[in-house]
């Protein structure tokens, strides 16, 4: 294809990608260097027959003027990335200086929300991905040897954990691992501890989430491998059998090399899927013990939205509430700026 023709061919896609993928990313990165303006506060002294009282309110006009002059907010550079809620460079430096051992340092780091979420997400991905792929492969091998009559029902039941909506599947297991549920009771019996609760311990919660992750994602690996097994060349397998290869040797030298491209595909897909783990933590109500990066981002952004919504609601409501006070009293004002927490503003 000529270069000119090729350029015209990809131009629509390139423009769409620039507009809808690259531009929003650049915009978000640019906006992340700015923070919302601080509220301009007004200190009002109200004097009446019984003396004077001081109260603080938001100067809407000054705040609006500030926002109009600098609509992006105030420039903070990389401060948002490095603050305690995110990369927490200062806190990590403090922890390194003040820790007596590596264990104490890691313990301090794990108290930081971003690193706690990162640790769980990496552990979840590192354990669930290989386990789901290996067990999926073994089940596919076993199902492939079944008589034709049994294959259909077996495939159906094997796919159940994946077919059912993740939230429902997780909720079902959540009930069963309850201290009064059948799995929770069975584990209490095995551990000989009637007070054992899977939901009350951080390590047990992590294990529970990972077991659920393997259980729910294993069928995908199974069905992909099962499809791949139908394409293994029978001639090669028969040749290996004639040469005296055992079943394990046929799997090792014929089946696994044939399925290697599928394994690469599965590894990539599963890593991406598991890195985005979110629903199980919600369904298992496990946010107190485990937090994933997706959950962390959700909480971070939804908290920001709530903050802005709260600020907007309070800002729009505030002048109306203050009007009678200004009307009935002599007011003297002085202006200063400060950050106020929206939830502490007058309701």
């Amino acid at each position, binding site marked *: 294809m000529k270069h000119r023709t090729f350029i015209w061919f990809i131009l629509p896609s390139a423009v769409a990608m620039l507009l809808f993928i690259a531009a929003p990313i650049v915009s978000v990165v640019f906006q992340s260097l700015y923070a919302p303006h601080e509220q301009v506060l007004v200190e009002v002294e109200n004097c009446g027959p019984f003396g004077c009282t001081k109260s603080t309110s938001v100067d809407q006009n000054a705040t609006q003027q500030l926002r109009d002059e600098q609509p992006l907010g105030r420039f903070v550079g990389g401060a948002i990335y490095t603050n305690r809620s995110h990369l927490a460079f200062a806190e990590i430096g403090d922890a390194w200086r003040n820790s007596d051992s590596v264990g104490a340092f890691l313990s301090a780091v794990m108290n930081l929300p971003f690193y706690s979420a990162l640790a769980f997400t990496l552990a979840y991905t590192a354990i669930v991905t290989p386990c789901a792929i290996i*067990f999926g492969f*073994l*089940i596919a091998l*076993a*199902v492939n040897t*079944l008589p034709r009559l049994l294959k259909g029902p*077996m495939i159906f*039941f*094997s796919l*159940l*954990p994946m077919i*059912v909506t993740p939230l429902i*599947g997780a*909720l*079902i*297991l959540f*009930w*069963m691992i*309850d*201290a*009064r*549920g*059948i799995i*929770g*009771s069975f584990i209490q019996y095995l551990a000989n501890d009637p007070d054992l609760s899977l939901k009350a311990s951080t390590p047990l919660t992590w294990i529970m989430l990972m077991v659920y992750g393997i*259980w729910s994602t294993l*069928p995908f690996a199974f069905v992909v491998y099962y499809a791949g097994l139908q394409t293994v060349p029978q001639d090669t397998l028969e040749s290996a059998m004639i040469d005296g290869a055992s079943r394990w040797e046929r799997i090792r030298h014929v089946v696994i090399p044939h399925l290697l491209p599928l394994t690469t595909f599965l590894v990539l897909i599963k890593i991406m899927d598991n890195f985005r783990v979110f629903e199980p933590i919600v369904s298992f109500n496990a946010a107190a013990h485990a937090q994933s990066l997706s959950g962390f981002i959700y909480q971070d952004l939804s908290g920001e939205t709530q903050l802005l919504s709260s600020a907007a609601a309070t800002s729009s409501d505030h002048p109306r509430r203050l009007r009678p006070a200004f009307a009935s009293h002599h007011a003297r004002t002085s202006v200063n700026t400060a950050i106020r927490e929206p939830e502490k503003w007058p309701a």
Partner: protein
Amino acid sequence: MEFLLIWLVIASFPFLWTLWGSFKVEGDFFSSPDWANALYGTMTTVETGSSFTGTACGGAWVQEEFCGGGSTR
């Protein structure tokens, strides 16, 4: 073959158990002192007069906020 049977139980038991439990009252579904209650519906019989009930939605499911009818907690 044993491996497949174990997997079959692991894959399907939670759904079958919950399906069975959905026709029982909460006391049977969470009857940890004696799981035979969950199988035979002892509490369900006491409460509804039958070992199966279609009103489980008002028991464990509503309390666990599954049915969307609001929480009792």
